[in-house]
């Protein structure tokens, strides 16, 4: 009896902490939802749009890279295919936007599954450099096939409004994060985690590594493709090969590692930090930002494999210990 009472009192502490975190999250979302109603500053809206786009990219990369342990350096290919699909269907063929947007996710996922079966034969670092080579080959090919600038047609530009783009980005980021949040509760995710820890052992205990890796890949590419569709919806003009550029792989990888790989909060915090620091430094020189993140990244890999999230839990752990 007494032991149970003490246990419940101890358990109440983290529960109170959790409630606080939830209140914070909901409050933040509330503020985010209201921002366009209170400000007309395009720079603020654009900045937040970028944050949401990067959260989606980083969190979707994290599904395969963090949870399934497959370091995918070809994430840009999914993003690019999504952008290409939406842009073609919506801006050129005149399909309704929503249809073109969903098609981006499906096209990206279909492509991912087709290449997934052969590339998952590559393990560890070979998977990383194989996917990088694949994405680069795709980028060059798209650049060759579609060398001309893709600009939105006049009627669309005339009706261009930032607000729906802002809300779509916010919704997509929330959807991605919610999926990652819901994931650990499922049996599938246990299999995915098992594959990350030890592929052979997972197989021995009846988990099919390929199926689980493909599942993680499907989710990861779905959201990356949708992010690409969002990019096509947002940008007025760009070269079709731009969304295939390695930047769209490397930036989310940096954000995820710095924030905390394999965690829910890591990619979100990392992406927000990444964009805000970049914005802050854009006034001075852009390269300083990359320099800082390069160094931060190395530090994280060497001494703090859990990124900001681990740093935070160590810090609070230390405080709790002091008390």
């Amino acid at each position, binding site marked *: 009896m007494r032991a149970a009472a003490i246990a419940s009192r101890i358990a109440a502490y983290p529960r109170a902490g959790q409630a606080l975190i939830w209140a914070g999250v909901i409050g933040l979302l509330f503020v985010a939802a209201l921002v366009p109603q209170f400000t007309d500053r395009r720079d603020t809206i654009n900045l937040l749009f970028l944050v949401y786009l990067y959260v989606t990219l980083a969190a979707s990369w994290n599904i395969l890279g963090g949870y399934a342990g497959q370091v995918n350096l070809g994430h840009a290919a999914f993003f690019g295919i999504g952008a290409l699909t939406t842009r073609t269907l919506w801006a050129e063929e005149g399909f309704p936007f929503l249809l073109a947007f969903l098609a981006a996710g499906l096209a990206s996922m279909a492509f991912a599954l087709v290449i997934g079966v052969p590339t998952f034969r590559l393990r*560890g670092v070979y998977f990383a450099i*194989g996917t990088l080579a694949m994405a680069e080959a795709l980028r060059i090919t798209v650049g060759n096939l579609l060398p001309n600038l893709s600009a939105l047609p006049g009627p669309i530009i005339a009706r261009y409004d930032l607000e729906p783009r802002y809300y779509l980005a916010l919704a997509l980021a929330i959807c991605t994060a919610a999926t990652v949040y819901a994931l650990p509760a499922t049996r599938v995710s246990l299999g995915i985690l098992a594959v990350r820890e030890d592929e052979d052992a997972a197989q021995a205990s009846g988990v099919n590594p390929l199926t689980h890796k493909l599942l993680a890949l499907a989710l990861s590419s779905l959201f990356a493709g949708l992010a690409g569709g969002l990019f096509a919806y947002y940008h007025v003009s760009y070269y079709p090969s731009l969304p295939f550029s390695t930047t769209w792989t490397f930036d989310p990888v940096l954000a995820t590692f710095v924030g905390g790989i394999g965690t829910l909060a890591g990619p979100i915090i990392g992406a927000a930090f990444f964009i805000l620091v970049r914005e802050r430094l854009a006034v001075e020189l852009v390269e300083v930002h990359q*320099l800082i993140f390069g160094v931060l990244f190395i530090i994280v890999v060497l001494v703090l494999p859990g990124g900001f999230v681990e740093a935070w839990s160590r810090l609070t752990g230390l405080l709790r210990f002091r008390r």
Partner: protein
Amino acid sequence: MNLEPVVQNLVFGLFVGGLYGIAAVGLSLVFGVMKVLNVAHGSLVMLGGYATYWAFTSYGIDPFLALAITAPLLFLLGLALNLGLFRFVTRLPEDDKIKNSLLISFGLTLVFENLAIRLWTADERAVQTSYSGEGFTVADIVFPYTRMSGLVVALAAILILHVFLTRTYTGKAIRATSQDWEAASLMGIDVQRTYVLAFALGTALAGVAGALVAVGYTVTPAIGLAWTLKALVVVVLAGMGSIMGAFGAGILLGEAEALSVYAFGASYREVVGLVLFILVLLVRPQGLFGRR
């Protein structure tokens, strides 16, 4: 059919291939000995290019003579990188070692690239010597002096490396370490010291490759990733750790690219190597790297 342009193309393919070879050899050496995948290798090539450019424009030193300065300079940089960074991963189990080295060197790529933009701006640089653009002609086939000398330098560097690895005690210790580091340590070889040396040598070789890039082609801060991929392609074709093989595979890739122009057009040159690379990786899932 007029074969002249084809032959000319093959000759250029040979020159470019020699450069691919020398760029890949350093990467292969480092991976073979340390099982460290240094994707910043291309950035080291870039730094070698800038060092050559700097020696030429600031002090008027001929780019080929400047190798006597740039190669040792990069060797020292390699020492520093190993002692400051890679030393911390070489003690990990092999899988973690490869993965962490990939990540660290990826961070390094960003650091070097943006440092180079700060120091030298993002403009294209190339060394223009008095004999640049000149060459001799045999049966209407042109042999530019700079690229010819580039191939000679690459061959000489490979030959020196080969003699070092097969004829000297230290070189043999490097080979022994690459084949079985534990057994090597049981022979009394200080494995960590061998790693430092191999990494510094690999960096110096990247410096040599960089000098040749600066002379025959152009250098910008952004070329790092492209050269890393190029070197990786070559190394996978050859089988990781195979030094002479990497050079041969470099020439093979150069010629394959030269010939691909006729099949797919010049704009797909870069794709050919990447597709070849993916195919080889898929045919041998663990890559040609493993000895299995």
